[in-house]
């Protein structure tokens, strides 16, 4: 499988000395393999997210490439992968050092992106300085257009807070115009990166869509009792409830809304809604709930990807960034097949080329992936993409959502 040669050699005793004196590692140059490196949060607060969205896809991809006999090059030959993996321990300084180590010590050919907006930004100047293309998937940022100017080989593939907020505002506004909803929104958000990003984008977006925000509350990270918020939202007269929440909050909100018999016609929850376990836990009650992300339920490539993901890693992928992470690796692989191991050429190919991935035909615009699902909805046990509605494979939005079914 994946060979970790360097590590084995170093383990054999002389490592401390070798490490301090940084002995030349000339064997990296003899081209018997392609070295792929990455630093990912395997421990610390970011390990949860990285362990769902990013790491399983890196492992799956590496395994598949290896099983196929290696990475294909323009001349048709194949080179096996050699993977160098580091744990950044959820520390920004550690990400920086690990990327430096990958570039200078391990002399890897390509570096896969770390998990999270902050860490992708911490790593971006280094990717840029050493000329590595950076396919940043798990980074939601509105500043991608500026970053692309600054770091020409950086690619941003998960959109920004404004994209998600605007798509949601459009959905609520259209349903309100049609008379399905009353145009009033109750909104809660977690006081942390994701929640703040989304809620600061949502406030102007909802106002621009002529929606009335009747309740807007921020709660600290780690909150477990949402009953007061749910009751206030219930009393606010809004029939759309939006929560920009983290996974534990998402699960708690779902449970406590059922207990409080809170049945907004539109229910939008944050991170965690698109986890397969969400549907498993909530069964039919998940139906109709909206969140970020989604997939095209008719896509065979996607269904096949989900099966392989589960078989190889033992867990099902989430319905938001997982599939995009995998698609980013397919793009890298295909770009290498077309252009070889020249990082400059590979980056140019990723920027301008068109790729057949699990997302279907994939092409970046200004180094960003823009054709992704901004809003998804649980329908028939699948989290399907509903917005943008003109996106190929979009499912029709179902509103109002059914009331909670008591078990």
């Amino acid at each position, binding site marked *: 499988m994946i060979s970790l040669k360097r*590590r084995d050699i*170093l*383990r054999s005793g002389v*490592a*401390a000395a070798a*490490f*301090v004196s*940084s002995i030349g590692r000339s064997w990296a140059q003899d081209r018997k393999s392609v070295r792929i490196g990455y630093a990912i949060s*395997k*421990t610390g*607060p970011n390990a949860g997210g990285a362990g769902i969205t990013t790491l399983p896809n890196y492992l799956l991809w590496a395994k598949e490439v290896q099983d196929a006999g290696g990475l294909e090059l323009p001349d048709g030959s194949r080179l096996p992968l050699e993977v160098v*993996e*580091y*744990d950044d*321990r*959820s*520390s*920004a*300084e*550690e990400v*920086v*050092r*690990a990327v*430096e*180590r990958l*570039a*200078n*010590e391990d002399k890897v050919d390509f570096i896969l992106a770390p998990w999270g*907006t*902050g860490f992708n*930004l*911490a790593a*971006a*100047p280094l990717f840029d300085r050493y000329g590595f293309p950076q396919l940043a998937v798990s980074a939601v940022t509105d*500043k991608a257009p500026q970053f692309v100017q*600054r770091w020409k080989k950086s690619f941003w593939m998960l959109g920004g807070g404004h994209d998600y907020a605007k798509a949601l505002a459009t959905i609520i506004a259209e349903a309100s115009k049609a008379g399905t909803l009353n145009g009033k929104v109750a909104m809660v958000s977690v*006081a*942390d*990166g994701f929640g*703040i*990003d989304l809620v*600061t984008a949502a406030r102007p977006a909802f106002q621009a869509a002529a929606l009335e925000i009747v309740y807007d509350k*921020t709660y*600290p990270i780690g909150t477990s009792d949402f009953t007061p918020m749910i009751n206030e939202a219930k009393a606010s007269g809004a029939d759309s409830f939006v929560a920009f929440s983290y996974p534990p909050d998402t699960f708690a909100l779902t449970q406590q809304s059922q207990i409080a018999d809170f049945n907004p016609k539109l229910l939008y929850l944050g991170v965690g809604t698109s986890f397969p376990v969400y549907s498993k836990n909530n069964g039919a009650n998940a139906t109709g709930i909206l969140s970020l992300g989604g997939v095209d339920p008719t896509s065979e490539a996607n269904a096949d990807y989900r099966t392989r993901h589960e078989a190889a890693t033992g867990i099902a992928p989430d319905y938001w960034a997982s599939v995009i992470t995998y698609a980013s690796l397919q793009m890298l692989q295909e770009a290498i097949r077309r252009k070889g191991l020249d990082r400059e050429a590979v980056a140019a190919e990723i920027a301008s080329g068109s790729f057949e991935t699990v997302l279907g035909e994939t092409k970046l615009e200004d180094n960003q992936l823009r054709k992704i699902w901004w809003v998804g909805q649980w329908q028939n046990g699948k989290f399907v993409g509903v917005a943008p509605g003109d996106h190929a494979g979009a499912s029709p939005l179902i509103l109002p959502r059914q009331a909670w079914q008591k078990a």
Partner: protein
Amino acid sequence: MTSRLLCQITGFLTIIIALTALPFFVGPYTITLMIGMLGYVALAIAWAMFSGPTRYVSLATVAFFGIGAYACAVFNESLPYPLLLLVAGLIGLAVALVVGLATLRLAGVYFVIFTFGLAELVRQLVTWFEVNITGTLGRYIFLPVTPEGIYWQLLALSAFAFAISWLIGRSRLGLALKVIGEDEVVAAHCGIAIARIKLALFALSAVIMTLVGAIQAPRWTYVEPSIAFNPTISFLTLIMALLGGANRLMGPIMGAVPLFLLFEWLSANFPNHYSIILGLVFITIVFVLPNGVLDFVEKGLTHRITAAAKPAEVQK
């Protein structure tokens, strides 16, 4: 004695000059490594400066480190660079004075708990401020500082911190601190202004920690509270200073350098077992070397000398 002092100063300056020239001879990875190492050297010296003699175990390191990093993130667009560091240092100083005045009367375990809470408190305050006042959480730092530049600044800061510790150790202030560490009641009866001295040292050490954060932050490009206020930094600093011996001038350096290299080696070679090994290292240090490496070595030597001398005495 004076010739010995001259020797020491010459040695110190030679090392500093050699380290200053280092970036011209080594690759970027070594610079990165040195940045991390010097960051911890400066933190450990600063920590030992206050906690060593007074024996007040502080876990507030990351509170000040984070304040520095955040100050850098907040003002990086509006202030020129040297002024940025000055402002960051002043903010650290102000916080340290307020906190110090309020808490340096606490002692023992209460102080430890308080300082641990302080880091979380500062982090929550920053979060609250960003959520309710500015409406953003992540902040970007785009400063044209090169890794070499950061390295030199940290080197200068470490050298400064070391020189200050050395001066304090030789001054009346150092003596006063030792008395406070031994017995506060005695110190008070000797006419030592306990509160003022503790406060001054706490503030000085806090300013150095703040500056480490402010100097290192541009390497991350992006700062948010969970990145800036990572509690691991407090624990690592503490264990480094303890390993070397917090009561000795060279202690923090002797602790920070080998431990940092060990951590780096562990994370490069045992990425999946890092935390377990780290925990074992902590336990080992506390059990085997409770007074630090330097003390251990010194005692070992004296022991051997006395052991060697004894038979001779018997013969007499």
